[in-house]
Structures are given as structure tokens and as C-alpha cells.
């Protein structure tokens, strides 16, 4: 089951690996591309060491604002080669409070970079998600903001539904 909820993305990027690494991992650069327009990243912390913080605040012209944003945890850093982080943990590996909407389900991302020759870089990202119940919770929260219902109620519902799945 779990593997059907995982994502693998591979792409060859037309830039040398040191540039790619810098643009991907430096908060000042990350801010420039991370958010889908018209949203933008107003704050970003990324501490490149195991247990380091990874936090994004996103804002939009329509008043959208993730607020401080739940801080994720960096799991593994191999300079110029690999970055892994998760939203299931906070900085220093403390189990994370799950937030609302997009932050109500945990995810682990493993991104690797490799010199592909000719100034190009082979990029690979693996995103791991937990299970179908989280997914259902996520869908319901994400699509129905402002219900005024608690995540628990929704989770209960999702459980009831997945029993029958």
C-alpha cells in the first residue's frame, strides 16, 4: 500500500551540480522558486545538518499566510549530493505537532543530485507519504478549510470509511 503513495521524480537539470545544490539549499535562493505564483516564500530557514530546521512561511496577495509554519527536520546532508528532510519531526528530531491543511500529514523527502556530465545534473526526488488514512485526512482538510470541524472528527470518518475500503 505504502509504495503507491510514494512519488519518484527524476529530471536532468541543465546546470552544474554545485550551482544546483546552492540554488536548492540556500534559503535566499530557495525563496525565489519554491512557492507557486502568486504565492511567495516570505521566510525560510534551512539548517543543513542532521536535526537542523527546515521551515517555510508562504504568503499570497489574497491574504493567504501559513503563519510561522511548522518546522520540519533535516535528516541527512551530503554536501552537493543529497538532502533528506521530514515534516514528521521538528528540529532536533522532536516529534512534530501536525498542523492543519497541507501540514496535517507527514512527508519525508529524499533529494539526490549527481553530476551528469556536460555541466548537467541528474536530479532525483523521492517523497514518502504515510498511509491512506493520512491521505484522506489531508484531502478533507485541504479541500474544506473553515469547516470548523476538528481533524479528529475527520480522521474518525476516514477510519470508518477505510474499514470498508
Amino acid at each position, binding site marked *: 500500500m505504502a509504495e503507491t503513495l510514494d512519488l519518484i521524480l527524476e529530471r536532468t537539470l541543465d546546470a552544474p551540480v554545485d550551482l544546483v545544490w546552492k540554488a536548492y539549499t540556500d534559503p535566499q535562493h530557495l525563496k*525565489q522558486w*519554491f512557492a507557486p505564483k502568486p504565492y511567495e516564500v516570505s521566510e525560510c530557514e534551512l539548517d543543513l545538518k542532521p536535526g537542523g530546521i527546515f521551515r517555510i512561511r508562504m504568503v499570497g496577495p489574497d491574504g493567504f499566510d501559513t503563519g510561522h509554519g511548522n518546522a520540519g527536520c533535516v535528516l541527512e546532508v551530503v554536501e552537493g549530493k543529497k538532502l533528506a528532510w521530514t515534516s514528521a519531526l521538528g528540529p532536533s528530531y522532536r516529534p512534530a505537532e501536525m498542523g492543519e491543511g497541507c501540514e496535517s500529514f507527514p512527508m519525508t523527502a529524499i533529494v539526490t543530485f549527481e553530476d551528469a556530465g556536460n555541466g548537467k545534473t541528474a536530479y532525483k526526488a523521492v517523497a514518502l507519504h504515510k498511509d491512506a488514512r493520512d491521505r484522506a485526512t489531508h484531502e478533507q482538510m485541504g479541500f474544506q478549510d473553515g469547516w470548523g470541524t476538528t481533524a479528529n472528527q475527520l480522521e474518525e470518518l476516514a477510519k470508518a470509511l477505510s474499514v470498508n475500503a
Partner: protein
Amino acid sequence: MLNDSPLDRTFQALADPVRRGMLSRLGRGPASVSELAKPFSISLPAVLQHLQALESSGLVRSEKKGRVRTVRLEPSALGAAESWIAERRAEWEAQLDRFEDYLSKLKNGENEWPRL
């Protein structure tokens, strides 16, 4: 966000406490319309309206035998793992597109390296 997609209808159907109550009940097994209506102090037409919303969202289906309409869950509506994962993929792909654009700007010197 999708407009009026099946997923949208699903979540619209879920956005009501009576309908969520009905779904919770159905999570324990099929039920007749009158069983479903019992916990709620609302009129039969209102109950039928809620059921219609649930049915058109695909969350439940019902069939009538004699005078009894039996309602059951249709789990596939929430089993849309593929669509969910497809959306996540689209987000990642779009982000990677932006990253590529940004890289090419950096390479061509269109963007100065932000001061660090």
C-alpha cells in the same frame, strides 16, 4: 483546486455535520433511510436531500427493495489514492519547473545571486 470535479463534490458532500453523521453510521454497515434519519431531528425531505448529495458525490449508493431503501458506503470515492498522488506529483513537477527556470536565470546572469 479543482472546479466541480468528483473530488470537489465529495468534499462538498462531506462539508455537513448531518451527512458526516450518516457516513459514520454507514461505516458500521448498510442502513435503511429511516435508520439513517433516526439520530437527526430533521424532516424526511431534508434527509432525502442529504442522501441525494451523498449519492451524487459517489460516497454512497442506495437501492430500493420493496418499500425499503438501503444505503451503503461506496469506498472507492475516498479510495482516490491515484488522484491524490497525481496532485502531489503535479506540485513537485511544477516546483521543479520553477527551479529549472531559476537555474537558467542564474546561469545566464539574469538574476544576480541574492546577497547572502
